[in-house]
């Protein structure tokens, strides 16, 4: 049987000093996935790092709508950086050819 590591949302909120509603809002915005078992909200281990990152933004006084916009932009930045790296490598092929 496959097992998963979970942390309760309450523990997370306590440790990071954030209100419980913040996690609800992130979940509603589709920014994190949570598991609900026996009416208790759990955060899967795979979501923890992402949630910590979003919490960092929240602690900079950025609201959930702002966090959502930033997340989309960061995803785009990541894709552009990835494309740029790939194009640089391709460019190297031609540069080596002309040397």
């Amino acid at each position: 049987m496959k097992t998963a590591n979970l942390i309760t949302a309450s523990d997370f909120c306590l440790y990071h000093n954030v209100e419980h509603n913040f996690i609800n809002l992130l979940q509603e915005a589709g920014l994190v996935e949570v598991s609900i078992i026996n009416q208790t909200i759990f955060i899967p281990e795979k979501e923890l790092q992402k949630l910590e990152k979003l919490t960092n933004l929240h602690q900079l006084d950025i609201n959930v709508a702002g966090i959502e916009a930033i997340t989309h932009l960061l995803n785009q930045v990541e894709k552009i950086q990835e494309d740029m790296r790939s194009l640089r490598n391709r460019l190297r092929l031609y540069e080596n050819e002309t040397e």
Partner: protein
Amino acid sequence: MAFIDYYKTLSLTKTASDKDIKNAYRKLARKYHPDLNPDNAEANKRFQELNEANEVLSDPEKRKKYDKYGENWQHGEAYEQQARQQQNRPGNYGGNGGFGGGFTDAESFGGGDFSDFFKSMFGGGGSRQTKYRGQDYNAELHLTLLDTAETHKRTLTVGGKNIRINIPAGIENGQTIKISGHGGAGVNNGPAGDLYIKFFIANDTRFKRDGSNLYTNLKLDLYTAVLGGEITAETLTGKVKVKIKPETQNGTKVKLKGKGMPVYKKENEFGDLYLTYDVQVPVNLTEKQKQLFEELSKS
């Protein structure tokens, strides 16, 4: 060790209120936070400076001490010690034996993210329980193309510690992977930073790489190009037999499916190997061969 103007760091003046400090810090932190500036070492450095300035200016005790001594911070501890000695022993007008002492060995407090100036003045990570994430570390790893043909493990020494990492097959030049929690230790039980490893892949083969595809030229003798046949082609990890169609033209490109590089983080998926035929015209012909070519040209 130079004096650091924390007010300047936060674009404030000395008269700034607590609210001004908080607002200035948050505003600049939104600009330079590492999560908002991926792969930007300069922003990361600036964020550390902001944290340090905020640590001092938002703590009334630290701010008072900083304001009191300002650029004379190097003598601050000594002045205080002397003042204490004079208070305790009013009759003692003796020397200044306390000068130069009193600075704490900051490293023992684990305040690795703070400047030497901060450590000298405040002695490490600070007395408050503000949690700070540890510093992110950046490292470089140089590999050859052949090294990246298979997933393997490597041991790296980062910050005096050995870390065994898994290097997925197919990693590309310039790619960065993050090892969570292997950066600098957090301050006041804050989480540890992350380790970013940037890969530099040197091509030690005769193949050209574009993503997971490989490209190479293959010499083909004229007779096989004209009549067809079978030749052996080298791949990254071995050799394969390739059938040549009759009347193959110079510069023809063929694809050997699945004979390229492994696709990054996709098990058992491979790119393709492209061969471009470079038909070789025979040289040093014998008289007989010349005659045969002449006959051919007339036919």
